[in-house]
């Protein structure tokens, strides 16, 4: 098990290196290069040369990459072109918001997806199943951001039940913790609803088919024949074994979840990493773009690794050499 872990970690680091080179080349491959963004086009050529030298842009690419890499390994991702702050501090300020959205969103999506999937499987071909399937189809076909806009318009603007953007409205002082909590919670509702829709749709369908497959297995029949109550059979055997493939599916979907978070943050002006990424793209703020890409790649790799390990823990048939 440990050897497997080490091997995977080495693979992960190698992949990260390769992708960092790819991203670095990507950013420097644009016609005009970083010059286009950094420098006022009306600059006299001499000043431009001086600035290029200052930013290290006149050195060969591999030197630039090496400089960037050594800095990154010290935790320094450079300075944002937009606000001249260290990239790390920009990122650090926003991590909390994204984690909040992510964790709450994923938990919510998982719980609802499992509930709906189980309901659908247990009452196969009934009206309930039909309705859940219909909702799932809509969820899959709906452009995610449109759903967010609709939610915003109906529930925030028209009905006024929830705030339409941002993470919190109250300033930190002068309110009880309960009020602050309520504020945060209210702000979370719509973004989480939008964020989780697609995955609830996909995962509930997935769990449904997974459960239907499991229930046909012989060991379920044996459990019932042994005299185990339907409820015990369900919780001890059927549910557990249906959840295992879901873990793999969630890991595969992690990339989509990250992208969904980016879109959600864009629509609801959520002050997180996704929003930072979007604005860095619009402004062509290269240090930040590079840092975010590395961050996202690392997250995807880690998520896959965790999923593989979880799989090994949950399924006793799997042994890692």
């Amino acid at each position: 098990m440990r050897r497997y872990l080490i091997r995977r970690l080495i693979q992960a680091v190698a992949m990260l290196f390769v992708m960092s080179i790819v991203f670095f080349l990507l950013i420097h491959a644009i016609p005009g290069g970083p010059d286009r963004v950094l420098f006022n086009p009306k600059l006299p050529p001499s000043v431009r040369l001086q600035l290029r030298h200052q930013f290290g842009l006149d050195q060969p690419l591999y030197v630039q990459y090496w400089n960037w890499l050594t800095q990154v390994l010290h935790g320094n991702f450079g300075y944002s072109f937009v606000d001249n702050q260290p990239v790390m501090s920009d990122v650090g300020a926003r991590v909390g918001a994204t984690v909040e959205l992510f964790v709450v969103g994923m938990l919510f999506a998982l719980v609802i997806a499992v509930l709906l999937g189980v309901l659908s499987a247990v009452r196969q071909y009934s009206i309930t199943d039909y309705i859940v399937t219909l909702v799932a189809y809509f969820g899959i076909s709906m452009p995610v951001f449109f759903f967010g806009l609709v939610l915003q318009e109906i529930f925030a603007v028209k009905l006024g039940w929830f705030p339409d953007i941002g993470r919190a409205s109250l300033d930190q002082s002068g309110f009880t913790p309960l009020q602050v909590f309520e504020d945060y919670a209210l702000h979370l509702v719509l973004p989480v609803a939008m964020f989780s829709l697609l995955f609830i749709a996909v995962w509930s369908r997935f769990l449904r088919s997974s459960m239907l497959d499991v229930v046909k297995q012989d060991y379920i029949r044996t459990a019932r024949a042994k005299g185990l109550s339907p409820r015990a059979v369900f919780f001890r055997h059927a549910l557990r074994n249906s959840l295992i493939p879901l873990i793999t599916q969630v890991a595969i979907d992690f990339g989509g979840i990250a992208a969904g978070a980016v879109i959600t943050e864009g629509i609801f002006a959520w002050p997180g990493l996704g929003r930072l990424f979007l604005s860095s793209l619009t402004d062509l703020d290269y240090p930040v773009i590079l840092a975010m890409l590395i961050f996202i790649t690392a997250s995807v790799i880690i998520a896959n690794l965790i999923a593989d390990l979880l799989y090994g823990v949950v399924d006793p048939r799997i042994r890692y050499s």
Partner: protein
Amino acid sequence: MAMIQSSPVSPPAPIELTPELTRKRRSQFEIIRDRFLRNKAALVGLIVLTLMVLAAIFAPLIDPHDPNAYNIALQTAPPSAQFPLGNDDLGRDELARLLYGARTSLLIGVTSMLVMLVVGVTFGAAAGFFGGWVDAVLMRITDAFLAIPYLIWLFTVGAIFSDGSVKSIVILIAVFSWANAARIVRGEFLALKEREFLLAARTLGASDLRLIFRHILPNAIGPITVIATLYVGFNIISESILSFFGFGLQPPTSSWGTMLNNSDAYITSDPLLVWAPGIAILITVLCVNLIGDGLRDALDPYMTER
């Protein structure tokens, strides 16, 4: 040990050709077609999608106004007799924009799917069929593309390289979606490679090319068609997401995505501008998904009728 008697064998009696023996058998295509058509949801999807395509093609006949003609006096006007869906933020005819936008969105969806399919199937087939180092190399390349989420790639490369034309969006979407298609096709080829009929053909001396095109590919067409159909919807959504965030099509090219981008600011004052393109996308993709699922069910040899 039995003695083999050589006895004269008389020719068999002539077979009576009853209607049962001579009736026309349904071809495989017809069987699949009929199964598909029996799926009501898929049928509805097909009809509605056809109507949408026709509406897009005959847009000038349905709404004679120019979708790009703006008229500031009519800014965000509500629906009227002359403009059934009202006017957008620049006074342009919303219905006309919807119809012409359909052309762009559908075109992008289908074209990018075709490009993606060609590349993806080639890569996947080569990797799956030849195996060995070919597979390893091709899969490494595919893995690099799959290392970060598809939408993140789209946003990044779109923001940096795209010039806002239909062509660059099509290429962009195709470039980053073929990896997934290649992987699926590879899986199909790997599975089909082990089947007996392939061993038989190979034993009979069939060349690699013949094996691929005459034997494996026809059997893989099923899942490939399903992927193709579903990806049309997926690509339409991708294009609209890109355009909505400003990384996709730039004016004057317009699609449903750009319409959503423009109308976002007016969500409170004139929500129709948001609903119209959004519902259009939703219905189109829903139809495409219904058709795709219908095809998948019709092509599935293990599906039992219920």
